[in-house]
Each structure stands twice: as structure tokens, then as C-alpha cells.
């Protein structure tokens, strides 16, 4: 921050000299505070009385509004809905309480401000400022006191005390840090696996029935979860945050990606529903182009081409789940996802 290396000539001359006596006759000199101009209330007692009545009226309205607030609280049932133009259908309690409270408060404020502006003195007064920096003598005294205190503590001389004290103070917060370890488990491989496994049937999340290939029509978007998962489960949200699946059907000839075709069943493809950007569930499907769009940050994926990213902030394609059909004719997973689902992270590789 030092500016020693550059000359100080660039600084404007001390401001005070501009107001000094030498240039007092300058046409730009500070002419000093202008004389006070009286308001109508200062010279006409009737005007002052009017102001007083206005202030009193505002305070009275406030009192009435508070009575109105209490009355609305008592009168309106909590679930009463009324139509008020132009707000539409609104809760009677909320509207009446809000307006009465608003008026009660606003009128106190308006009264106080009107009182200050019309009846209290509006003569401007000047107050001196004092430099914040201490005078050199004071500073010298403080420095001397500090030096004496430091010397009496012998901290500089008794190096052993100093070193061990810093060591102790530096180490003691570690206990707190260690305690924070209990906040949660280690990541381990948790983010790499989902509940999907070989042989798990795909359950349609609308009907809660196993999905059959003939249920999936071209142009439809179906959401599925693994069998054995129930919304009543304690950890349902944790599970579905990774397991959620979206299923579409594409004419096999339209599937551009070779692996995608291999992992599909008769044009039915299953992709993770969790966006690879920051984990929103993807829900917007364009039937003609087989593009899906994440409504949160508009990452767009092409489901006919390995779900690669074609627009937006996502960094990699949606993971695909390999599916087939079991003996009962239901769709089943042929294993877990081959890569972690959801947002990318350091260990993902």
C-alpha cells in the first residue's frame, strides 16, 4: 500500500487552503451556511395548528387500524377466501390483517415524519469533526505502554514459553475439527452405485406395476424405479435421487449410437433421469427430435445419440441402464449403471 516510490505531487493541494483567508475573495469560496428560511409553520400559528391536527389525525387513524386488526383477527375464519379486485381470490384474514397492520404502522411513521418536518426546528447546525488518528504524543504513550507490557511479560525473552504456547493454542482447535467428523459418513464408493442390479424389474412410477415392452409407445416418456423400492421407505428419497429412470422408445434405425442400441430392448432405452450437471431431474422430452431438456439449467441431451450433451452447462452424457426382458415378459435391468449417475465429482474419473 505504500506510495513512497511515486511522488506525492499528484495529490491535490490540501483542501483547507482553498477555504483559507488568502483566497477568501475567490468567487468559488465557501460562502458559509445560508440564512435559515422560515417555514409557514414558523411564522403562522394557524398553519402550525393545522400541522398539529394532521399529525394527531394520522396517529388516530393508526389507533383505529389497530382496532381493525384485532377485529379482523376475531371475525374472519382462518380459511375464508374472498374475491377482491384486482388481487383475485385471497385469504380474508391475510388481506385484512396485512392492510390494517400496514396502515397502523404507516400512520405512526407518517405522523412522526410530518411532525419532524413541519413543527420541529429545521435550522441547520454545524458540528465540528475531529481527526480520527491519535495525536503523536498519545501514540507515543500507547507504544511505550505496550513496550513495557510486552517487556514485563517476557514473551520475547522466554522463547520456550512462547513456542509451546503457540503450539498449544494452534492444536486445541483440532479437537473441534475432529468432532465435526461425526457430521456424516465417508464418501467411499457410495456415489458409484445405485439400487439397480441384474434382474431387477422396472416399475412404472405412475401405475406401480412392472413395465412391459408393449407399454412403452414411441413418443412417450415413462419414469421408472427398481422393484423393491417403496415410497414409504425411510430412505426412499436417498434411493430415488440416484435410481430415477426415464424410458423412451425410439425406432431402432434412428438410434445413432452403437452401444445405446446394444443396451436397448427393441428400441426401448433407459437413461438416468438425474441431470449430470447439478442433479435436477430431467423432465422435458421433445418427441420429434428425442431431445430431453433439464428445466433447471437447460442442459439438453440427445437420447437418440447416447444422450450426449447438445446444449447447456452439463459436462457429460446421461448414463444409460442396460435393459432386457425377463421370463414374465417384463422389462428388467441387466446390471447397475456402468458409471456414477448425477453430477460429476473429483473421484469420478
Amino acid at each position, binding site marked *: 500500500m505504500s506510495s513512497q516510490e511515486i511522488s506525492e505531487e499528484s495529490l491535490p493541494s490540501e483542501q483547507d487552503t482553498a477555504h483559507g483567508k488568502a483566497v477568501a475573495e475567490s*468567487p468559488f469560496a465557501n460562502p458559509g451556511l445560508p440564512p435559515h428560511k422560515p417555514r409557514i409553520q414558523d411564522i403562522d400559528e394557524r398553519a402550525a395548528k393545522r400541522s398539529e391536527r394532521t399529525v394527531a389525525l394520522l396517529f388516530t387513524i393508526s389507533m383505529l387500524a389497530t382496532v381493525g386488526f384485532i377485529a379482523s383477527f376475531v371475525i374472519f375464519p382462518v380459511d375464508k377466501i374472498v374475491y377482491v379486485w384486482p388481487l383475485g381470490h385471497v385469504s380474508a384474514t391475510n388481506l385484512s390483517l396485512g392492510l390494517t397492520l400496514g396502515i397502523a404502522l404507516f400512520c405512526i411513521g407518517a405522523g412522526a415524519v410530518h411532525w419532524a418536518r413541519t413543527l420541529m426546528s429545521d435550522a441547520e447546525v454545524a458540528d465540528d469533526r475531529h481527526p480520527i488518528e491519535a495525536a503523536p504524543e498519545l501514540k507515543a504513550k500507547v507504544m511505550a505502554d505496550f513496550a513495557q507490557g510486552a517487556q514485563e511479560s517476557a514473551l520475547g525473552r522466554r522463547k520456550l514459553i512462547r513456542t509451546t504456547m503457540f503450539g498449544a493454542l494452534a492444536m486445541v482447535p483440532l479437537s473441534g475439527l475432529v468432532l465435526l467428523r461425526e457430521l456424516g459418513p465417508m464418501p467411499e464408493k*457410495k456415489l458409484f452405485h445405485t439400487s439397480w442390479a441384474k434382474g431387477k424389474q422396472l416399475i412404472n412410477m405412475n401405475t406401480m406395476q412392472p413395465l412391459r415392452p408393449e407399454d412403452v409407445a414411441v413418443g412417450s416418456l415413462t419414469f421408472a424405479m427398481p422393484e423393491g423400492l417403496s415410497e414409504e421407505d425411510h430412505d426412499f428419497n436417498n434411493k430415488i435421487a440416484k435410481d430415477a429412470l426415464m424410458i423412451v422408445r425410439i425406432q431402432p434405425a434412428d438410434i445413432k449410437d452403437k452401444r445405446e442400441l446394444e443396451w436397448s430392448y427393441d428400441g426401448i432405452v433407459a437413461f438416468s433421469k438425474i441431470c449430470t450437471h447439478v*442433479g435436477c431431474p430431467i423432465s422435458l422430452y421433445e418427441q420429434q427430435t428425442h431431445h430431453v431438456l433439464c428445466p*433447471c439449467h437447460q442442459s439438453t441431451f440427445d437420447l437418440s445419440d447416447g444422450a450426449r450433451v447438445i446444449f447447456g452447462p452439463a459436462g457429460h452424457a446421461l448414463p444409460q441402464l442396460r435393459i432386457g426382458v425377463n421370463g414374465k415378459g417384463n422389462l428388467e435391468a441387466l446390471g447397475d449403471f456402468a458409471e456414477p449417475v448425477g453430477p460429476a465429482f473429483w473421484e469420478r474419473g
Partner: protein
Amino acid sequence: MSTANDTKRKAPAGERVADWADGRLGIYTLAKSNMRKIFPDHWSFMLGEICLYSFLIIILTGVYLTLFFHPSMNEVVYHGSYVPMQGVRMTEAYASTLDISFDVRGGLLIRQIHHWAAVIFLAGMFVHMMRVFFTGAFRKPREINWLFGFLLFVLGMFTGFTGYSLPDDLLSGTGVRFTQGAILSMPIVGTYLSMFIFGGEFPGHDMVARFYSIHILLLPGIMLGLVVAHLILVFYHKHTQFAGPGRTNKNVVGMPFMPVYMAKAGGFFFLVFGVIAAIAGMFTINPVWALGPYRPDHVSTGAQPDWYMGFAEGLVRAMPGWEITVWGHTFVLGVLLPLVLFGVMLAAIAAYPFIESWITGDKREHHILDRPRNAPTRTALGVAWITGYMIMLIGGGNDIVATYFHLSINAVTWFVRIFFFVGPVLAFIITKRICLGLQRRDRDKVLHGRETGIIKRLPHGEFVEVHEPLSQAHLHALTAHEQYAPAEIGPTVDENGVERKPTAKEKLRSKLSKGYYGEGNQIPKATVEEYKEISAGHGHH
């Protein structure tokens, strides 16, 4: 009873209470310097008051809400009075928010006052900081108070975020998911942080309880301390003022705290509270009942954070999805860089006063405010920052912009990507031009007087407009500002004739100083000599 004085008169009750307090708290000494403390008057000084009052309103209403809110993620089936949600599985947090909204009389009003006041608090701080920035009120001795204010702004953003995440509704849960995804993008520590914050995998069962204690205790506690420190410093430094007749750098001109400012500022608290209460009564904010409880596999379209998080959202939306894998590790740049940029844009606010004082080398106290035009480069930088911020606010709502104006979402995103860089540059150039133009106009007004609009016909037929000379007060106000000369690099040859190379730091400072104060970057203000010369030969315009 022991002294003669006591028996002479009995002091009034109020005075006796004050005496009692003075003997223990020293209130007379405190009142001596503060009761009639002078406050200057300017409309822009009330912006900070809006922040203070909305903060108090948030605390008041927040305490009320804690009486009814259950910060728990235990799942329940809703059986309250809001029919569309009956039978739906949800967390207790969401269910109790529905209860506050539909079953507690006045609960909805308090919830809405709380949320509206939070939105206004952040907006107030934003505008208050602009006021302080553009008038140079952050200069010595107020840099530390600028930092306190900056911290309040940042903490306010995160307190707001943890607050609106508490109801555990579909919208806020989506926001938390976004945050968790952003945390995951951090190199090395990302997955650990995520596991520790959420107590395991997302969403887990701890998030609401943990956010609750952060939202109602940790962050507001720090903020309350900062607000108090901020106010103490405002009192200690005394208020800044604009140049004008009777106002100097060594005084403060205005009206006394008691009674005028007590009434005005105290009354203003009620005005702010009253307006917020009326808004909360009339306009719905955050209708969580319409969204449903959070589920990680559900989402609504048009998901938006509260406005103050919008620019972070914009950064994330506009960023291309860069992802690099090196030696088996993933750098999620597409999420990480926006996070870093978010921090950098905020840090720029904190650092600015120190950068400017380094460039000017000015170590004096400044209590007279700059008119923004008289600091063209600073003003232009500020407007450039705000332009970048606003572009990102548009980016954060790119889906809303696209649907409302029937535009392609890709086109809106590309506009944001390009104009995040181009916009601030254009804004900088245009603002500086405007400032210099206004400086020229001031100079013209000082030298030639005010245009009266009166057209005079001279004897030989020429028409001229009559200019009226300005009053001395007006002349002073227009010429009171200081103008720095650009800092030159000091002598490169010392007294012994030994040459020294100017350091890179010196060169940078000299360059920046030219950019601020060099030729063409400020208009020299009218001098007394110029004024006298022109007024001596009056009649010519």
C-alpha cells in the same frame, strides 16, 4: 439525606431514574456527544435505514415463525386444512409450513412479511452499497465499515438461501440439490463436504435441522454483531455530506438527532414496516403449497431462486459444460468456474476501496462526497460491474425470458455468454462519456452561468440567450471537488546519478492513475482565473 442539596428539592421521577442509570452506566457522558449529534439530510442516506429496519422486521417475524415451524425431516402424511395436499407424504418441515400458512391465524401474514422483508433487505443493501460506492463514501476512514457492509450483504445472501430452503418444498429442494451438485464439483473435498453437510447421501434426513440452526442462530448472530459494529462506526465517523455552502471536510451540517432524527428515523421504521406489512397482505410470495413437497425425482419448470441468488444461477446456466479428467480425477469446470467467478465478483466489491486508495496514494480523511460524474472512471467501473451482474440476472432467468418473449432458450443463453463480456465494456465507455459530458456542462455553467431561456434581441438584430451568473453557493458546490493529477513514476535517476528501473508495481500504478485522472479521463474544472477573465469581459457569451 446527608447533604444539604438533597433536602432542598426533589428531582422529577424521570431525572431520578436517569441519575440512577448514570451512576451505573454513565449515560450522561454518552448522551453528551450523541443526543444532539448532527445528521446531514439527503434522500440517499435513508437507503441504509431501509436495510436496518427490514433486518429488525426479519428478526421480529422470524422469532414468531420459530414458535410454529418444526425443523424436522420426519415423514408424515398431511391431514391439515389445505385440501389439495391431504394424504400426501411430506416432511414435518413442509407440513408445519402449511400449518403456518393455513391453520395459524395471521401465520401466513407473518411468513409473508418475513420473506418480503428478506427480499427488500437484500435489495436495500444492494442499492445502499451503490450509493456508498458512487459517491466515494467508502474512502478513508470508512473502508472497514465498507467491509462490514459487504460481509452483511454476503451473509444476507446465505441467510436468505438457508431460510427459503427450510420449508422443504419442491422449489427450494431443487435449489438445495443444485447447491449439493455445486459442492460436489469442488476438487478433492467435494464429496466429503457433501457427505458431511447432508449427513450422508443427498437429501438425507439432516438438512432441514442443520440449515435451521444456521439460519436462525449462526448467521443472524454474526449479522447482528456486524450491524451493531456498522452502526457504531457510522456514529463514530459521523455521516458524510455533499459539498455545499457551509459544508466542509471538517464539519458536519444537518439537524440534531434529538428531536428531528429521532422522529424522522424512528418514524421511518414504521413507514418501512407498514409498507412491508401491506405488501405482505396483498401479494403472495413463495406459495409453497402450490409446489408440493420436495422429491429428488420431481421438478417444476421455471425454477428460480430468490432474486439475490439469480446472478449465481446465471453464471451456472451460461457456463459451457467443461469437464476435464486427468489421472483419474475429474475437474468439473462447468460448475467450478462459475463458483469461483461468483467469489471473484463479490471479492471485487470488498477490494475496491483499497485498490483506489493505492492508485491515488491519498491518505487523508474524506467526508465530502463525490458527485458520481466527478469520478468518471470509478463510476464507469461501478456501472460495468452492475451491467455484468444484471446480464447474469437475465441469464439466471433465461427460461423465463425465453418463454415470456417467445425467444429461443439457446439464443438467450448465447446472448448472456457474449454480453457478460461485451456489456460491461460498453457500459464502461458509455458511462465515462456521460460523466465527462456532465463535467463539461458543470464547467460551462460555472463560467457562463445558467441558461435562463430568455431570448434577447440585440440592437443590430442578433438574438442571444441571456445567461444568469450562478450564486456563490452554487459556484462553490460545482467547483468544490478535488481533481487528482495522474501519478507519475518518480525520478529514475537518484541523487548520485545511479539509474534505477521503475518496478512493475510502479508502472502499473502509474498506468492505472492515468486511466483515472489522465488527460481525457477528467475535464479540468473551471479555475478562478478563467472565471474572472470571462466575467470581466461580460456581455459576450
